[in-house]
């Protein structure tokens, strides 16, 4: 069974995958696998971009998204006449002839990965470059183009080791996708601990993050710049406690929330004991 593995932590957002997908499918006719994709407006492979945090604790996460080639594919469920089918290798393909007029196939996809071609009146999406695989290619265009190995393609067994912590893009959709995600972005809190009276950063301060709902804690130590980071944490309300030798301890909990966004908490000032 073929699967894709997408390691979001390795993706640099170059969109080579998105562009080679267009290179392969726009103005190229791969019937019976796929009809040509319109020049613009469809993204059989897209990259979702998310700017996170506030100056100077900012990062950008990029998440490549294509057809998830689901085991329980909603598109297949709504398709009539077998217009969406699963190949022996597991790839889910829309038959461009049988699918004509079936807009429901577009609407059924919880990942917005199926597009409607107005001109041809067909739903279109990623084929896993099935036309190339059947011609001897070992991976689709997007995977070949990724310089950072953020996209992988192969037999499930080949990747079994790395898939232990893998996630689905939208677990709530319960479609059992054959695209496995690693390191999907969660939330972060970053900040700086400083002695503002001395105008010095505080190195080695112990910072504890407490999830106010669950009581779970994480602890880290400020680095050479007085910075601390809690990455890949839940969207939740938190409290922060800072302890450093020679300083009064400090407890912060107002507005320490990642419910809506990643957070640069800014400078937490400590006062000499």
């Amino acid at each position, binding site marked *: 069974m073929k699967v894709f593995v997408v390691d979001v932590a390795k993706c640099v957002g170059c969109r080579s995958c998105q562009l080679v997908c*267009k*290179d392969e499918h726009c103005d190229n006719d791969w019937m019976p696998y796929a009809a040509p994709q319109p020049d613009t407006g469809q993204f059989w492979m897209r990259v979702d971009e998310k700017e996170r945090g*506030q100056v*100077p604790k900012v*990062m*950008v996460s990029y998440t490549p998204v294509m057809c998830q080639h689901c085991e329980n594919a909603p598109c297949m469920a709504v398709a009539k006449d077998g217009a969406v089918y699963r190949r022996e290798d597991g790839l889910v393909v829309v038959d461009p002839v049988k699918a004509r007029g079936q807009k429901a196939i577009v609407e059924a996809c919880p990942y917005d990965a199926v597009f409607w071609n107005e001109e041809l009146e067909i739903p279109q999406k990623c084929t896993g470059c099935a036309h190339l695989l059947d011609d001897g290619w070992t991976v689709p265009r997007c995977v*070949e183009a990724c310089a950072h190995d953020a996209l992988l393609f192969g037999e499930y067994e080949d990747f079994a080791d790395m898939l232990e912590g893998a996630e689905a893009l939208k677990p709530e959709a319960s479609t059992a996708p054959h695209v496995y995600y690693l390191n999907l972005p969660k939330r972060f809190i970053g900040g700086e601990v*400083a002695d503002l009276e001395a*105008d010095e950063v505080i190195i080695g301060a112990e910072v504890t993050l407490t999830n106010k709902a669950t009581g779970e804690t994480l602890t880290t130590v400020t680095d050479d710049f*007085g910075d601390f980071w809690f990455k890949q944490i839940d969207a939740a309300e938190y409290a922060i406690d800072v302890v450093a030798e020679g300083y009064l301890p400090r407890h912060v909990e107002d507005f320490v929330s990642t419910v809506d966004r990643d957070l640069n908490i800014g400078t937490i000032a400590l006062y000499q004991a």
Partner: protein
Amino acid sequence: MSNEVKTVYKSLGLCGFGLGSNSAAVDVKDGKILRIRPMHYDEKYDMEDMRPWKITARNGAVLEPKTRTLPTPLQYAYKKRVYSKNRVPYPLKRVDWDPEGDRHPETRGEAKYVRISWDEATTIIANELLRIKETYGPFAVLAQIDGHGESKIIHAAHGCPGRLLDLLGGYTLQARQPDSWEGWTWGAKHIWGMDPVGKQAHTENLFKDIAENGDCVIMWGGDPETTPWGWGGMMPGRIESFFTEAGIKQIFICPDLNYAAAVHADKWIPVLPNTDAALQCAIAYTWFKEGLFDREWVEAHSVGFDWFEYYIMGKEDGVPKTPAWAEPITGVPARQIKALARYWAKHAVSIGHCAGGGLIRAAYSSEPARLEVCLLVMQGLGKPGAGQINFMDLGLFGIDDIYPLPRSECQPDMNSVYHGWAMLTEPVNFIPKTLIPQAIMNPPVHWSGGHVIAGMPAQDQFIEWDFPQPGAGELHMIWTDSPCWQTCWNGGNEMQRALRHPNMEFIVAQHPWLENDCLFADIILPTTTKLEVNDISADLFSGQYNMILHEEQAVPHVGESLSDWEAVGEVAKKLGLYEQYAEGTEDELIKKGFMNSGCQDMISYEEWMEKGYYVVPTAKDWENDRCHLRGWYEDAESERLSTPTGKIEFYSTALAEHYPDDVERPPVPHFVPYGESHQESMLHPRSKEYPFLLITNHPRWRVHANNDDNTWCREIETCKVVGPDGYAYEPLWVNPQDAVRMNLHDGDIVKMFNERGAVLGGVRLSERVIPGALYQDHGARVDNIVVGEFDRAGANNLICPSNTTSKNAPGEVTNSFLVNIEKVDVFALAEQYPEAFSKPYDQATGQIAEAVIIKEGE
């Protein structure tokens, strides 16, 4: 299906200058490009014969080349460039330009074009060349024949006109500046020599050294995930990922969270644009104050260190350059400056660049460039894991000394058949590229700074020069094959005015795409992209393996285009000079190129032709190459630097000799916020009227002005901001704090302006730029609302300073300058400027060729 598909190989990098890169396999079917994909090195050769290399970090992380080439997104989308609606379809003549009558220079940039034949076009050009030579002499013709373009060799994108003009008795050359590294040239060379570029001139095995011994790389303005895309491939980004894996800290110091910082930074230190020199001074101050450097070592390796200390500690001007002093200037908290200084002093820290970064192309860029060297030297430049490293232009000019990755056995050399202009030849009559508008409008022009050509030795800078040279006159004609001056250089609006100057009787442009300076030409010749020609090329900048390619023609010429070489050849035919011009047939030249490449003994010509490419193996003994500056670090006497004293010159003896009173570039490097040449600083009263500093880096989805018409890039949501009128405006990043203050919202269209004019932009609220600064890519295609004043597309070079780096340094200033912004109503503007806002426009492509062409019968 494979049977019908033909595959050819192309180096698709956009460096130009005869230097290929970013190679790809192009599959062709039925005369059309089917796909552009990576080449697999091992498709026709054994991997082992290439001698795959490996760099292993202390923690075991490994960096090695891939078995395939690493084209960038710009190459993958190149099909859209070849088949762009913006291609020049056939030769064009400006409708109101009459060589026999009224030439209407004043309508350039506005007047439309009519179709003419190649025969008619080349006859006009030939006649004009003869007339102008007869009337004014050959130097009245300005050749703008340099620049970053497609890496064609025989069919060179830039330079072919020069060959013909030489046969006609000469011309005036637009001298190619060290544009990407102005600060290194005009500043750093005077502290550490390091010819020809001014950056660390020995970087052999520097990446290996950092992997094995380094703790941290400070990316000071560089963006390895964007700038190298033009011709440095994806290896620079892979090196960043490798550093992360190797546990090597990456600190980014830049006003914008650039694309590499956004994914690779361990720490971002945002600094107000072009205040880096103040930050550097404060770091040095901390080291002096706290004794965090080896004075004995520094003094053994340098001269004039006491002068530097005198300035930094405030003895010279009464202002100690403390972190507290730097905080309000730079926006970096003093405690963070101290923390950085102390971290640096305790660790092996290198500084990384991609050519330069904004500070190196800003006003007074000589100063941060020199101060960077001061800092590197104070912390033992050349010690294990510490150097200055360029993530791109590996081995530039064919120099192995500046190849920081495992070296190839050779760098294939294309010079024997390269028809572009050779950068290091000495022209008789020339003008620095930065001074073109003055040379057209206000000759004579006098400057200090010598030939101003990238790669000239430092001493050349002390030659005073005049345009025109004795015996030469003013300019009356331009032949350009790099028609993007106004959207790439300093003071584009002034250039637009220059192109309309009544002295300028004839302008001919040749280009694949109808854009920018083309729209000011009187005759436009359509030229091919490299997919349409048969050529030879070398892949030099991949960081993996070098290659020499036989680049077969992939697809037929688009429209009536001819290659640049062929187009000029048609003019040569009209002048009876074709045979002297051409120097052989295409096939003969490809063979000659191969036989003189340096690879001719590694593989036979026949086998190379048949296979289409040859991969040069990694040098057998690369690990035994010298380790950049280690020997000099260990013994200052072991090597002379190319400064007058042979040592690091904290006090530049040459500047002191030639320009002792230059306060804009004094003998000891200074923080120079403003002066006689520039007032682009928050510390200057001008900032009351123009309270933002604009950062305008090399663009993410373009290479300078290249690729702005690419439909697949333009639809990326961060590439453009589509206004309420459907026009795709160039994004302008505004920090939410500034936006709130100014009541700006995501998607608003704003006018960005200063005394030099205005351009529009689409607001994108972003935490990737600091308050007080704005960010907009440079290089958008000019779309004038009012010529010389107001542009719709966001071509912000139009409002860059016209003045050069400083009084005695004629470099470009194209980054970090003062502007203001105000929200505009595009519908009101459309009423005010109905003509500009109603041009034919393609939603996906943007501006298109047909917008300026009068169809037959119209």
